[in-house]
């Protein structure tokens, strides 16, 4: 009843190929964007910005990148964090070594650098597939992080290896407070999500999906696997690279190799699996889930501890969190293997009829 497309006619090709063909979707998205751009910056607390909103958005961007590679093009990768690291360090060096470079250009440069590295590590995908490829991408993870630690030039010969990121300044405006950083991140992420959505439903996206579903058949109908796979690696790494630069500049405030560990790669992979493989929406839902759940768990353990006076040592709390987190992931995979995005789809189907039974 609430969510029904009856009576909405498309009278032009443009209307037919719109991103959101249903009016309710358009209204819904407009409300979400209005809340995100106007209401939240006015009301949210600095803690909410820097602990939840900013990391959720940035990691959603990385998840989007990985989703392009794994979800759309079907190339399993365990090295997303490494490409984020390339983006972060490249941006840092652009800002450091080219005086007066616009910050956004430095971020884009970081993305391009990550894309170049991504293409190199994507080359094996032309020969191997599946878990062999996944393990091969681990080579990127370990090798890149090692390089960033060992090559002094990249870290500007900083002895500690932890570099403070430069201040963010675009066209004379500085982004210092959490709310300002949030708005910058939100703008970049929104634009890149829009681009990803359009790529996914356009010519490139269909080629990726064809390669994913059956590469031999795709080749037969004239899709060039080498170009398409490497393009997927490049685009995916570009997204990860920009996300990595934002992660360093807007979230951590430091540029350090340790932040981009294998653990982060796994978390990003979790995001797309829990969110929904091969969906743009899923990257955001999954990212919110993976960022919020550990915070929620640690708060609830603390709360239980304080209210019941159990005196739980902190190590027990953190181990309990680990167990619950692992358990939740398994639970979600069993209950809904296609992720949160699928739950949203089912809800939409239900809403078409609600409150009537038929």
């Amino acid at each position: 009843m609430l969510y029904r497309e009856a009576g909405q006619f498309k009278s032009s090709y443009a209307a037919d190929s719109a991103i959101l063909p249903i009016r309710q979707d358009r209204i819904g998205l407009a409300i979400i964007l209005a809340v995100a751009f106007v209401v939240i910056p006015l009301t949210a607390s600095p803690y909410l910005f820097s602990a939840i909103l900013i990391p959720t958005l940035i990691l959603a961007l990385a998840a989007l990148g990985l989703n392009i590679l794994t979800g759309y093009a079907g190339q399993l990768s365990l090295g997303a964090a490494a490409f984020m690291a390339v983006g972060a360090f490249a941006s840092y060096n652009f800002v450091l070594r080219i005086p007066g470079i616009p910050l956004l250009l430095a971020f884009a440069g970081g993305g391009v650098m990550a894309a170049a590295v991504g293409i190199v590590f994507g080359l094996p995908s032309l020969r191997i597939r599946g878990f062999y490829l996944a393990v091969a991408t681990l080579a990127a993870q370990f090798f890149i992080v090692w390089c960033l630690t060992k090559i002094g030039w990249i870290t500007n010969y900083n002895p500690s290896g932890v570099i403070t990121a430069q201040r963010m300044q675009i066209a004379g405006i500085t982004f210092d407070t959490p709310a300002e950083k949030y708005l910058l991140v939100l703008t970049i992420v929104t634009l890149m999500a829009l681009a990803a959505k359009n790529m996914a439903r356009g010519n490139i996206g269909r080629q990726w999906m064809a390669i994913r579903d059956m590469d031999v058949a795709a080749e037969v109908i004239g899709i060039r696997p080498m170009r398409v796979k490497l393009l997927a690696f490049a685009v995916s790494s570009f997204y990860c690279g920009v996300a990595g630069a934002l992660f360093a500049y807007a979230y951590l405030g430091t540029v350090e190799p340790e932040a981009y560990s294998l653990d982060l790669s796994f978390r990003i992979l979790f995001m797309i699996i829990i969110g929904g493989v091969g969906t743009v929406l899923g990257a955001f839902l999954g990212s919110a889930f993976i960022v919020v759940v550990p915070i929620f768990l640690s708060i609830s353990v603390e709360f239980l501890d304080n209210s019941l006076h159990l005196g739980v040592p902190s190590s027990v709390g953190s181990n309990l969190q680990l167990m619950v987190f692992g358990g939740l992931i398994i639970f979600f995979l069993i209950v809904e293997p296609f992720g949160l995005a699928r739950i949203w789809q089912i809800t939409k189907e239900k809403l078409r009829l609600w409150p009537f039974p038929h």
Partner: protein
Amino acid sequence: MIQFVFEVAIGGLLSGVMYSLVALGFVLIYKASGVFNFAQGSLVFFAALTFVGLTEHGLSFGVALVVTLVVMVIAGLLIERLVLRPLVNQPQISLFMATIGLSFFIEGLAQLAWGANVRGLDLGIQDEPIAWIADGTGINISKFDLMAAAIAAVLVTALGLFFSRTRIGRALRAVADDHQAALAVGIPLQQIWGIVWAVAGFVALVAGMLWGARNGVQFALTFVALKALPVLILGGFESIAGAIVGGLIVGCTEKLAEVFIGPHVGGGIEGWFPYVLALVFLLVRPEGLFGEKIIRRI
């Protein structure tokens, strides 16, 4: 100089045997159920921690070993029943992610039950060079490493015989070949999967005790799994022989690279060298040394 090269190479080979031991756990499960079990490293950690925890509670070596074995077998069966069975027929990547979730769970559980302190594990084997070899040739070979290699060899032979000679082993291979065909000829699929997981738990116990005795029982044991991955791609996911040969290659080249290339580039290359080696190798032989060659059709 040449002696030193030999010493490093032999040390690497022997530690490679320990890698193969972990890789073996992966291969067993991948062969039988197509699951890439990332939790194997956590199982190794869990087994070692349980064993040490039990001996600290005053149990004798033998009793603790038996109890741990029972725990590991039960853990394997529970994993099969509670995690893998509900996920049958899901895409491989979902299964893989589930095992990563599982590894978090097991790591949390192990440390919750036994604490996170680093502990020693004494198997009663001295970690010292074997005197007569050192005297005769000047090459130091650790007695412990040799014993570990021997234990691994026995285990692998036993598993090999189990797979090729027993009824259950043949059923296992049938399941690995084709689930549906195996079901059709009356092989109880779920029972077989239960057995595989139990055996994987047992292999994890052996690996955990050897690794624990070598490096101390600590959280870093879970990273042993990461060392086993390049072994797997070198040897092929489906091959037990591949796991062994891959382990030897990785162990040997990694040590040689660390000792002879490492100092020139700042050290610490052990972490990624096996991966890059495996990657280069894959470009030549995409299915690994002993992996099954896949013929692709439309």
